[in-house]
């Protein structure tokens, strides 16, 4: 926290203003469809931030993250449908379940090298989708195979996690995102964060420095899957209808990975930036060209990804940060470059 407040006052001021703007946004935006787009941007930033714990810091490329989102959505929904348990509670159950599945899968796969891990996660993600498409019912729980589940419309209340106003959904996901970003920040500045980064970059050297690399990767996996599943519940409550392909497929997993890499994996704001850039592209092409040109937004995604990786392999956060830095530091030039000036360093 001390470090958080140690930033330059101008940066703190801008951040506070931005944050304030985010919170009064629903007062300005009145169109529900525009609000829906904004909610999805925040939701994707959230998904990608949860991905970041493994994909960004542990040095591997998970391509099956949607499996855990799906587990969250299915768990809370079937618990609500079958026993009337509040989705808020189901959310936690889903999170724990996803965490458990993540650890079981991660235990052997996180030891694999990059390409193998990516392959294994694709298999897990796709396997999970096929499994859910094949199963109509598990014990008392109806999951309806490929046709998916639609939630019954309830009256707007906190208990049922259904709200008449989009703004409520917006505030919920915004707070979820901010919590995850804070968590990311604290993790990056903790032993776990340092150890994860070390193990991701040079596992052999990390082991030689006393780090049990696989243990830290598992911790990251457990956190990441837990948080992803919470987002899955949110998605289910927002859409009130989902099916395996919509929530567990390769498309969602890839989109998350693309957002992360374009924004900047392993950074706090990368996922947010990536979602801010890509989601509108996706929504706009879908709205205006979706009928005549299906799949166009995915072509654009792919092309953006290829171009960004070509010129900014670390993602767009870095060049944008430099741009902002130059803008802010311009008046105080020379001072900032002086290494003896302690305020120029982030310690």
């Amino acid at each position, binding site marked *: 926290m001390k470090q958080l407040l140690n930033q330059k006052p101008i940066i703190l001021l801008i951040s506070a203003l931005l944050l304030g703007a985010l919170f009064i946004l629903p007062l300005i935006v009145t169109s529900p469809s525009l609000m829906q787009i904004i909610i999805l941007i925040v939701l994707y930033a959230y998904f990608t931030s949860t991905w970041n714990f493994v994909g960004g810091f542990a040095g591997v490329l998970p391509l099956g993250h949607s499996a855990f989102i799906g587990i969250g959505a299915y768990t809370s929904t079937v618990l609500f449908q079958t026993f009337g348990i509040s989705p808020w509670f189901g959310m936690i159950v889903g999170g724990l379940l996803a965490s458990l599945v993540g650890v079981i899968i991660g235990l052997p796969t996180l030891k694999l090298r990059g390409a193998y891990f990516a392959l294994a996660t694709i298999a897990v993600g796709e396997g999970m989708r096929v499994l859910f498409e094949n199963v109509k019912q598990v014990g008392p729980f109806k999951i309806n195979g490929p046709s998916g589940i639609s939630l019954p419309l309830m009256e707007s209340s906190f208990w049922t996690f259904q709200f008449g106003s989009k703004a409520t959904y917006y505030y919920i996901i915004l707070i979820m995102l901010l919590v995850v970003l804070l968590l990311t920040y604290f993790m990056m500045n903790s*032993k776990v964060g*340092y*150890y994860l*980064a070390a193990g991701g*970059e040079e596992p*052999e*050297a990390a*082991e*030689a*420095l006393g780090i049990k690399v696989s243990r830290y990767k598992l911790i990251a996996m457990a956190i990441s899957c837990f948080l992803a599943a919470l987002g899955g519940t949110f998605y289910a409550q927002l859409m009130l209808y989902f099916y395996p392909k919509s929530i567990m497929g390769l498309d969602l997993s890839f989109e998350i990975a693309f957002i992360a890499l374009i924004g900047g994996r392993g950074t706090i704001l990368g996922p947010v930036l990536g979602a801010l850039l890509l989601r509108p592209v996706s929504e706009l092409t879908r709205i205006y060209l979706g009928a005549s040109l299906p799949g166009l937004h995915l072509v654009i995604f792919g092309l953006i990804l290829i171009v960004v990786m070509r010129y900014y392999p670390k993602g767009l956060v870095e060049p944008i940060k430099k741009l902002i830095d130059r803008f802010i530091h311009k008046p105080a030039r020379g001072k900032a470059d002086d290494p003896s000036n302690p305020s120029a360093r982030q310690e």
Partner: protein
Amino acid sequence: MALLEVKNVTKRFSGLIAVNDVSMSVEEGQIVGVIGPNGAGKTTLFNCIAGALPPSSGSILFDGQEVAGKKPYQICQAGVTRTFQVVKPFATKTVLYNTVVGAFATTQHLHEAETKAIEVLKFLDLYNKRDVVSQSLTLPERKKLELARALATEPKLLLLDEVMAGLRPQEVTEMLPIIRKINETGVTIVIVEHIMQAIMNLSEKIYVISFGKKIAEGDPHDVVSDEEVIKAYLGDEYVATQH
């Protein structure tokens, strides 16, 4: 009691015996050198001690504790830290970050780890490079960073794997006092090395390994004059490094 006691360690790779029944002992505070021609098995022996490879048989006692077959991170936690011949910095991270990773071995808090890391960096004259990303360091600097990271874990025993390899003669002469300085702070050092002169100057005791077997041990100057050593190894190698 010796700090490190290697007893009859053998390492086999499907048919090939890389280390054959080697014993050695290192007293606290010593600098001990292990030399031998390429492929003699000294790196394999080193890896057995550091935990990168489990020995096929034999025992390795550190501080009276059996460490043979333990994982590298356990061995580090026990107080033995190694460096790598081919340096392995966390390439996209700064010098300070790299060192902090090492310093976390003894603390849970970032603040304490940073204090410790800065102390080590100052000790090794790397402090003014602290914000440089490690992939843009020169080779001698990377070697020093490797040392800094290892030192930050506060080891009792430091295992140096060919820390001079690839350095120019002048850089070697700069490295020697650093190693001696580390030793003076109370860290015991085992150094596997190819460059004879370097090790002759540093070590109190030398082990010579050839074809997986220990062929000589003792005072560097006695070892050099040992007939078998000259025949097995020093003959070509020593003359070559003289020029």
